[in-house]
């Protein structure tokens, strides 16, 4: 297309203007959060916008560790994170490998079941599972949250890894088999190392899911503060209208909870973006 160079510059500037304006709107809540987390208690309810607080109350970030059981919350959350990431990295790729590469009787049927569970909304399992775990005395323990995860109870991850395994040329596996490798050896030494991008994507999803999860910790761990995760701890701080003094504490907590997500995003961005664009899974 033949274009007047001036109109091109004009168009580019307009584009940058719109993009920057949008970016400002998107980033503003986060800037405000960081700013509020650094305010002293008397400043948070002032009716002025003060993005760079004076004084900067860095002590909010140390006080929160003495006023809130942050380490306890973090430890509890990490238990769930480890269980989720383990599930995404061991049982899920195992099942995925069988679905992609090992012919066995009824494979199509099992794969059909797997796909069917992808469509099953969690709400139809919520109540009977709670009753079941309640009867065996596991409510107020981490087991109802750990057990499904360490067994690889996630059809999305299995499906995603299977698609990746199917794309690996069969000759690679056969070469290893000729060398006498077992199926387990083929999986562990050939399939897994090649599949780092997809494994990175599912472990990021698993980490993110466990870090953000709210409903399951709420029903299984909610009644004992000793067992609370970061999500539950932050929710308990929420200020209703009229109880706004803890706003800076809430924002400090939010920033602390966001930091691991940011670190993960920084290092795993390419895998995360690729994974999201393949599956449509919302983080």
């Amino acid at each position, binding site marked *: 297309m033949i274009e007047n160079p001036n109109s091109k510059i004009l168009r580019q500037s307009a*584009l940058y203007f719109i993009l920057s304006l*949008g*970016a400002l709107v*998107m980033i503003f809540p*986060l800037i*405000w959060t960081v700013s509020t987390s650094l305010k002293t208690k008397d400043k948070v*309810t*002032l*009716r002025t*916008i003060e993005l760079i607080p004076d004084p900067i109350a860095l002590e909010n970030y140390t006080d929160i560790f003495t006023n809130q059981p942050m380490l306890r919350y973090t430890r509890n959350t990490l238990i769930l994170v480890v269980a989720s990431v383990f599930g995404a990295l061991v*049982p899920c790729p*195992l*099942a995925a*490998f*069988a679905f992609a590469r*090992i012919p*066995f009787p009824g494979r199509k049927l*099992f794969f059909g079941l797997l796909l069917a*569970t992808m469509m*099953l*909304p969690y*709400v*139809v*399992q*919520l*109540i*009977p*599972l*709670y009753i079941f775990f309640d009867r065996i005395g596991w409510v107020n323990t981490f087991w109802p949250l750990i057990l*499904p995860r360490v*067994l*690889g*109870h996630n059809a999305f991850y299995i499906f995603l890894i299977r698609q990746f395994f*199917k794309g690996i040329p*069969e000759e690679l596996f*056969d070469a290893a*088999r*000729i060398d*006498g490798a077992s*199926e387990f*050896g083929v999986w562990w030494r050939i399939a897994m190392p090649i599949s780092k991008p997809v494994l990175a994507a599912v472990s990021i999803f698993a980490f993110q899911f466990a870090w953000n999860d*709210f*409903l399951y910790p709420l*029903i299984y761990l909610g009644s004992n503060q000793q067992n609370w995760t970061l*999500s539950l701890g*932050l*929710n308990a701080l929420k200020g209703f*209208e009229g109880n*706004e003094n803890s706003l800076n504490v809430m924002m400090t907590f*939010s920033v602390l*909870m*966001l930091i691991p*997500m940011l670190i993960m995003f920084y290092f795993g961005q390419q895998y995360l*973006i690729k994974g*999201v*664009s*393949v599956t*449509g899974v*919302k*983080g």
Partner: protein
Amino acid sequence: MANARILAQSEGRARPRLSDFWFKHRSWIGFVFIAPWFLSFLLFDLMPFTANLYLSFTDYSIGPVQPNWIGLDNYIEIFTEDEIFSKSVGNTLYYMVFSVPLGLAVAFAVALLLNTRVRGMPLFRTIYYLPAIVPVVAAAIIFSGLLNTRYGVINQLLMAFGLDPVRWLSRPEWIKPSLIIMSLWGFGAQMVIFLAGLQSIPQELYEAVAIDGGNGWHRLRNITIPLMTPTIFFNLIIGIIGSFQVFTQVFVLIDSDGGPLQAGLVFMMNIYNNAFRYFRKGYAAALSVILFLIIMVFTLIMLRTSNRWVFYAGDEE
């Protein structure tokens, strides 16, 4: 592959090893590989799903008692007497009708802008995606501050433009708009899906339009949008399914009663309240079966049309 098997088997006969034993039994080793997942399928999918269906026909409440079979009573009550049910359906539909199309429109527009050859595109993409990685509870807490009536930034801005402050979270008519505003903040995932779709459109098609003298509008209308319909459709269905199950945002930003006049009481909240606050687990199970059926209809529509938008390179199944 057949050659490989013969090779390995002949080698196995010469020198028996454990690995050859595994190899010859490839058909059952498959079961070993899927065993952990299959156990989780039985324990956490099949059994609860069946039990939930059964519970929905009982008046089970709590404790180690045998549930009483009451037939269709729960379902009859839901559709004839339960005003909170119809309220929750209305609230959920209101939320869905605004948040899903608006979210799609914004995500699509930003993806279009980012798909031009702009310098600094990765930076913009990161900034637009960032809100999507904020933990849901943190996002709701942040918005409870932003939307606060007295000192919230959004009201400060309204007042700076000479407008009246809005009581976002304490007026029934503003609760759903508040939830919708918050949902719009996290369009990053949809945007990334759109971007991936846009980048897979062959450039030659655009060149063809340019040769025919078409402008930007023609490119969008005749190439981009038709080729993006599958992606738009995919995002639409995912968005609809997600908005039927919205829970955490409402629980944290409003409360489990849905705020004044239950204006924020969504479908999932009604299920949660019946199951875990009113201890009407049988009734809550019936509600969840209804939600399941609604979601199922949308999922089936998506699957029926999936051949239009799913393509996996090298997949022959």
